[in-house]
């Protein structure tokens, strides 16, 4: 029996380091300004890189850093960490040249990446996208539009999912898509920042238009036509990070309630129950998230488990921030809780809505049941 819930020492250290950084740097005033004015925290991002806190080559550290950052301020924390968004695509499927040219500068903090999948007409239904990559002489021509893309106005380049051929049949809608690396500065690319988000307002979100953008062949990732599968594999990794965001947000709300309880010495049982229920939910979400991550990080992911972690943790982030804010009333309204409440909602939407996660879980489990396989790893 070697079941062990202790994190390795170096990972625990990374957690402490992330917590200290967040507590020192994500001051309430700074968080408020970035939230109100929808400002991207350029300086904080640099500092976090300098402190060695953004490390996709060390996923456990990254996961716990995500949790601790979001616990203090989700908008700032995510802005900093999502500057490497999409890098796993190259890590898994990129050529050496692509890695060197695009991924490495992102990992050392000198460049920013973005992942552009969603379109105005297709979000959940990834196979419904209509952006096209067509061959023309020795290169590709990119035409179409992307929507709600994190980092789009500040990124140096985007990983773009587009159709390289029409779906061969109704059942095979997932075929015929490819991922291309597209520089933001290339002719024909235009971005338009979206303002007025409910939460995560320090993060940059924009729409992108591609109008006859020339894309060289060497900027296609992996094999032509396999883009959908690459993106799904990517989501299987990134969703555990969203789960960690959610755990962090919920923990941040619980921290506020604990502080309140500690200082007030209240013996109201209604408060005690909210506290107890929240703490139990958070711990369950955390364990589920770590288990899903544990499989992902040893290259043995269980998509059902990852989706469970993402869906469940998002639900916990939303319900915990809601009940804690409701209980704390105007005190909560004037604290960071109101921001946590707004920030929590996105976890049910991005990188697969909760509805989509549930469909993944159910379909995977039924398939396993039909094949007589083990239901969950």
């Amino acid at each position, binding site marked *: 029996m070697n079941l062990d819930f202790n994190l390795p020492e170096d990972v625990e250290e990374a957690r402490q380091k992330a917590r200290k950084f967040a507590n020192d740097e994500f001051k309430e005033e700074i968080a*408020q300004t970035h939230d*109100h004015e929808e400002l991207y925290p350029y300086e904080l991002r640099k500092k976090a890189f300098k402190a060695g806190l953004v490390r996709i080559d060390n996923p456990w550290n990254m996961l716990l850093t995500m949790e601790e950052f979001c616990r203090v301020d989700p908008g700032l924390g995510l802005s900093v960490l999502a500057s490497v968004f999409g890098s796993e695509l190259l890590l898994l499927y990129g050529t050496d040249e692509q890695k060197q040219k695009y991924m490495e500068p992102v990992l050392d903090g000198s460049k920013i990446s973005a992942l552009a999948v*969603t379109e105005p*007409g*297709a*979000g*959940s*239904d990834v196979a*419904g996208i209509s952006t096209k990559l067509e061959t023309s002489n020795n290169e590709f021509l990119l035409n179409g539009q992307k*929507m*709600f893309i994190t980092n789009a106005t500040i990124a140096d380049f985007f990983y773009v999912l587009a159709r390289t051929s029409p779906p061969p049949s109704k059942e095979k809608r997932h075929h015929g898509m490819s991922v291309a690396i597209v520089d933001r500065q290339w002719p024909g690319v235009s971005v338009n920042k*979206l*303002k*007025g*988000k*409910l*939460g995560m307002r320090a993060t940059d979100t924009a729409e992108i238009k591609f109008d006859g953008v020339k894309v060289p062949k060497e900027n296609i990732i992996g094999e032509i036509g396999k883009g959908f599968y690459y993106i799904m594999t990517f989501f299987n990794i990134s969703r555990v990070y969203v789960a960690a965001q959610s755990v962090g947000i919920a923990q941040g709300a619980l921290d506020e309630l604990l502080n309140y309880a500690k200082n007030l010495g209240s*013996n*109201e*049982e*209604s*408060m005690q129950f909210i506290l107890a229920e929240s703490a139990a939910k958070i711990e369950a979400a955390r364990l589920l998230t770590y288990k899903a991550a544990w499989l992902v990080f040893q290259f043995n992911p269980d998509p059902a488990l990852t989706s469970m972690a993402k869906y469940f943790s998002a639900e916990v982030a*939303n319900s915990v921030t*809601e009940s804690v*804010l*409701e*209980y*704390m*009333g*105007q*005190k*909560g*309204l*004037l604290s960071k809780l*109101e921001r946590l*409440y*707004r920030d929590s*909602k*996105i976890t*049910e*939407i*991005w990188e697969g*809505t*909760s*509805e989509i996660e*549930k469909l993944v879980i159910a379909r995977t489990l039924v398939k396993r049941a039909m094949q007589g396989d083990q239901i969950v790893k």
Partner: protein
Amino acid sequence: MQLLKQVIEEFSEKEIDPVALSIEREGLTKEVLNSLAEKGFLGALAPVEQGGAGLDGRGYSVLLEVLARHSPSVAMYVFLQNSLFINPLLKYGSNELSQGVIPLIASGKSSGTFVNYLLTGNEITIDGSIIYGVANHIPNGSAQMCLVLAKSASGGQLVLLDKGFKAVNDSRKLGFRGLNFSSISFDGASAKSILISENAEAEIMKIYNESASYISAIALGIGGAALDMAVSYAKERQAFESRLIEFQPIAFLLVKLISEFNVYERYLYGISSVKDSMMLKELALDFSRRASRTSLQVHGGYGYIEDSGIERFYRDSMALELLTGSYTRDRVELSKELLGVESAKY
């Protein structure tokens, strides 16, 4: 009542809809306030002789519900002027005082706000007729007049001020962004009039309890509008080559919420006691939040952006509860009402 509803609906479409988004970003404009005053809505509960509309409880509920559908901030503003300013003046002020003050509110020449430490937790005290203390995040905080619940040696007092206090603009928070919020400091302000001179807390709780059906009307307006928008979006939007409304989880969630809405709305217009009101509020606020959250979710990424007009319902449905009540206090009051226990304290 149908007629009244239609009048308010037409008014809202004409005067509010075109500026609903700019109200969220820049606040209520003079034009909107003037048009509300012209219709008598700022003095909805005030008698006609004082420039009001003299609406009864039902008419006033219709007003708030319809306004909230178009702009929760506008509904909240009207609620503040009527339920938390004109109503206590009519109830506790002298005839002379209300005749002097209410026409100013009803005509929009002046506006009022209510500072209640029971909700804000700020220490506001009164010594003789001099008020001390600072209150945070007061909606319509730049009002010219202020009703204040202050602590004195002889318990709470309710006083009216028309000068001597300073308001400093607060930053935008969760909800009702069309109203400006301020911190108000009272150091040394003297009261124009003392409306309740002792044990005002209990009376103030009564005012909130009696307002429960109006708070519910706003909650139902928010939830109802959020649901309408979700239904029409789900009928249009396609994913996986089907309309969203064809997916059972979406349809089933919407029909449950629509059923709740209809039951609550019908109940609202049959309310005949404070107890009825308080029971509805317990359910309507929660409904409003769930309906808004569901609507946002159905709208996907679009729901997350201000332009869609959905996310404000999500924010406002929560802010409504935080600004008009307190989790524990409301339920302690309801326990008195329904269980006959004096105080559920532990």
